[in-house]
């Protein structure tokens, strides 16, 4: 299993989760966990996904997510889980 963290931050609007999850489904990326909050109209979501069965290489999905974010006026980023593990765990 190759895990990655998808972060989404920006102004709340209709269809953010729908857009993200349909994009992920399209490239066969499985969603493992979601944590989402809205504070004073700022939408913040962290998703844990498994990219091991995806149809496309990691870097292409990462580019795709970034583009989806800029199309929707949100900051979206997909990062390999190791960056968080290595920074915060010994």
């Amino acid at each position, binding site marked *: 299993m190759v895990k990655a963290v998808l972060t989404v931050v920006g102004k709340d609007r209709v269809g953010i989760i729908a857009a993200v999850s349909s994009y992920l489904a399209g490239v066969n990326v499985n969603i493992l966990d979601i944590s989402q909050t809205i504070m004073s109209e700022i939408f913040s979501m*962290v998703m844990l996904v498994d990219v091991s069965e995806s149809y496309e290489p990691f870097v292409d999905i990462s580019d795709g997510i970034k583009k989806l974010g800029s199309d929707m006026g949100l900051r979206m980023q997909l990062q390999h889980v*190791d*960056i*968080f593990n*290595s920074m*915060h765990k010994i």
Partner: protein
Amino acid sequence: MFIPADEIEQTVRMISEEHLDIRTVTMGINLLDCASDDISVKCRRIYDKITSKAGSLVSTVCDIEKEYGIPIVNKRISVTPLGMIANTDTEGCVRLARTLEKAACETGVNFIGGFSALVHKGYTESERALTESIPYALNATSRVCASVNAATTKAGINMDAVRDLGLLIKRSAELSKETGGSDCARLVVFANAPEDNPFMAGAFHGPGEPECVINVGVSGPGVVKRAIEKVRGEDFTTLAETIKKTAFKITRMGQLVAKEASDRLGVPFGIVDLSLAPTPAVGDSVARILEEMGLEHCGGPGTTAALALLNDAVKKGGIMASSHVGGLSGAFIPVSEDEGMIAAVRNGALCIEKLEAMTCVCSVGLDMIVVPGSTDAASISAVIADEMAIGTVNNKTTAVRIIPAPGKEPGDTVEFGGLLGSGPVMPVRSYDCSAFIDRGGRIPAPVHSLRN
């Protein structure tokens, strides 16, 4: 979710708002096997070796950058000090520099270091020719970086080389006078140069290094500044602990990237250089960290103590985060590349003499200092000699990267662009030191070199 949300948020914020990045992934390549009596053969071998070893360096590092979502600002190459294999005249040395430039363009790296000579005890014929060719080599290229190791704690200071370098730096500035003497930004004079430094302009692949190696330099002054804002007014123990914890996190990024790059390229991992490397961007300054500790301006009384604390805490925090630490490792204080340093010079708080004191406790030395073009070669040599003395006596690396900008006077500014930033011209005390520099010979090694 098995990773706490606040940890994810902290990492994302460090990268997106606090300029956390990996400053450089540098591939070191041994060129000793490229030696030949025929300069054309030598150039071809060097080009072929660099392009075959580093052919996929840039694309591999770009993939890592995308997958981990961490910017990796520079991809670079360091090679065996060419003084060891040049064995040719000035013209031949310039040809070697052009070969490095061509290989750098082909592989897509922004700098290639190793047009270097290790002459702390004296020149070989090859190293003399290479050193004398440096101004012409730099002028004929844009990505080649040169360095000369003119002193070590064990050997003392080669004052002949120091004298020559004053003249060569002046020549280099003259040759690039249209751009304010910018060629000098690619020339470093070292004492105790590390063999595994990934940072430019002083990177070279030392003779004790393996065939090929990956070294990584981290950065992150903005992250440290933001972290210590939260402990404003608290005591020095708390301050040092906060910097250590932050340095640990920054270095872990470097370790991760270094391991990935090493695995994917099939090249051994060398070291992580735990440095705080500033950029001219606002929020990415080492000077502003010192000011955040409680100083009105970087350069005022207390600056050396503040820098000593910072430098030490960065090392302590970083050491446990990486399996192998090396290079320069500490806080860099390049003037033109640091927004806060530039401001401190402009408002008169920071002078060369204070910077010299700061170099006793920071990781490198007088870095990216712009001085008036009228400064004579002997004074530049003497500034270098002072810095070499600090390095040899204190058993540390020191360096000088000085730009005597032609036609510029104190109060002027020279724009270098990009990461090199813009340098305010700093006055040098104009007392004659030519009789000192003209003595030549070597300053003997300090007594504490006799440890065996």
